[in-house]
């Protein structure tokens, strides 16, 4: 088995200036009683202001853990960042003190979670929870903070904000609750928003509304957005580029339309083939065979090799680096050329 030095594809090809956020060779592990789970194993990605990066991948591939490491809210112990850099606005967050990180959290970067009902405090009013952002970060008075909370609720189009500011989370519908989460993330006009499956817990009918609102606000405030999702349909609509994760690594990264047209990794191809498509109605849906790897024992070589239809001997021994496919895309597959052509 050879060790890997991942040379990353220039993430910002074609865009001027340094990116807002650049994650470099990030490693995260969970030291549990059963052993060390290597959840993130050298992730590289970047987002610029006004740009949307969609992160795709099966359950357990490390999408949320990467996001938690960026936010600095990793469950630690057992989770530890063991290697890498998280450069945000020119500073490596991993080198900052906890106090400095806390000032950034919520103010410069904010996170939207999947389940708004459990993510909001059940015993505090939404007005209090929104206003808290201003009171803590800006030292605003209780009264002013409440006015700000109402303003925010209007901003995310919650009807009758003035009357509802003193309501509790359980008194809102799922869609309205997620709007409150969005409002809370937006409160201090951060430069980066990480949305971890923001619409998964919602009814299909309100999913689109919430997603549209998020995309609209992102454009308006010119924020960077990391969108973690399983929904390939949503990705096509709102994302600029995609990073596909597998077993804690980025296996493919590409501008969204190029990736849809021509995947350069067999795993991405499998993911794309497994979405139902209108023009192929009636055909059997494809599913990637096998299960995601156990993170306590990741297969040697390419982690995807046991499930890959193209696997050769080299795939079982050598970890593939992220090969530059073009200026703006990369694939961590020994046979990326063949995949691209096939």
């Amino acid at each position, binding site marked *: 088995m050879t060790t890997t030095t991942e040379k990353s594809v220039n993430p910002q090809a074609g865009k001027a200036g340094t990116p807002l956020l650049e994650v470099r060779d990030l490693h995260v592990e969970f030291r549990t009683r059963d052993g060390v789970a290597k959840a993130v194993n050298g992730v590289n990605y970047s987002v610029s202001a006004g740009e949307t990066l969609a992160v795709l991948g099966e359950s357990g591939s490390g999408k949320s853990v990467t996001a938690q490491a960026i936010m600095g809210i990793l469950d630690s112990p057992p989770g530890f960042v063991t290697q890498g850099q998280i450069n945000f606005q020119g500073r490596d967050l991993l080198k900052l003190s906890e106090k400095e990180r806390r000032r950034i959290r919520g103010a410069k970067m904010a996170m939207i*979670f999947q389940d708004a009902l459990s993510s909001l*405090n059940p015993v505090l009013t939404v007005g209090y929870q929104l206003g808290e952002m201003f009171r803590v970060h800006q030292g605003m008075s209780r009264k002013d903070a409440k006015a700000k909370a109402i303003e925010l609720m209007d901003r995310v189009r919650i009807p009758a904000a003035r009357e509802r500011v003193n309501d509790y989370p359980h008194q809102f519908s799922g869609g309205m609750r997620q709007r409150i989460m969005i409002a*809370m993330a937006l409160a201090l006009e951060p430069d980066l928003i990480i949305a971890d499956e923001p619409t998964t817990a919602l009814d299909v009918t309100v999913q689109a509304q919430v997603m549209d609102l998020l995309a609209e606000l992102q454009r308006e405030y010119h924020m960077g957005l990391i969108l973690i999702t399983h929904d390939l349909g949503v990705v096509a609509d709102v994302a600029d580029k995609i990073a596909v994760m597998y077993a804690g690594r980025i296996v493919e990264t590409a501008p969204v339309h190029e990736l849809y047209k021509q995947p350069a990794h067999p795993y991405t191809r499998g993911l794309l083939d497994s979405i139902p498509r209108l023009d192929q109605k009636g055909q059997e849906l494809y599913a990637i065979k096998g299960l995601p790897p156990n993170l306590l024992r990741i297969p040697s070589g390419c982690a995807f090799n046991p499930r890959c239809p193209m696997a050769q001997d080299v795939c079982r021994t050598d970890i593939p680096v992220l090969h530059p496919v073009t200026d703006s895309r990369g694939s961590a597959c020994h046979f990326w050329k063949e995949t691209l052509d096939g």
Partner: protein
Amino acid sequence: MGRYVIRRLLQMIPVFIGTTLLIFIMVYALGDPVSALFGDRAPDPATAAQIRHDLHLDEPLWKQYLLYMAGIFTGNFGTAFNGQPVTELMRTAFPITVRLTIVAILIEAVFGVLLGVVSGLRRRGWVDTAVLVLTLVVVSVPTFVTGYLLQLLLGVRWGVAPATVSAEAPFNELIVPGLVLAAVSLAYVTRLTRTTVAENARADYVRTAVAKGLPRHRVVGRHLLRNSLIPVVTFLGTDIGALMGGALVTERIFNIHGVGYQLYQGILRQNSPTVVGFVTILVIIFLIANLLVDLLYAVLDPRIRYA
């Protein structure tokens, strides 16, 4: 809410009748109070019959119960073994036990919550381990052992606290007895707090609070504790009733003439008016405390609505 309270108050009536009837029957089963009155001497049959008649002891049980209940509602709880009206005993005993209970509840709340929060946040730390062992010891040692031990050490050997309590039973003399009375519940509050704090610490809303960039004291104080303490407050509320009735052993050890002491005397001398009267009041306190706890619960947790 108003309708809920009324419904709960109405529900108390059958509970009240049931418990008082039960205790009435049990006291009745203790044996003949009149022969107990005379101690070892055999009573003169004529006098005994006269006393029995005066106390309605020659009536059937159900009639005795009805007569007793009728008495209660006119404020007549009967006469104690020493000839005093039972209400007179209550007037001196209850304030003392209430003070003792206040001391005990305060000790439980302050130390139980404090220890529980520290060990819940630092699970498997040395504080947590020490607290776990300590609570286990406290729970498994009977109250009279902790009681006599503390009395001996603090009161007699080192003389830092009075060994027995004077008749007025002021607050400062009740600290050690309060600690003894609180001990088992204190261990329970500690464990309960530890569990709910540890559970809530992993909750999504706590993660949100951290992601908002709130300082740790705010994450813990405003978000984590506010949720974790709901079951603890509920327990403390119900414990008020239990402590007041359960002070029997503690009051004996420290010679406190409170409710437990009077109850003990009542049972010893088979004086049914004392026993039934005190238990009746305790039942009422218990029922009201429970109602208040339920109402408090709705205040603390906005998701609960009574209709």
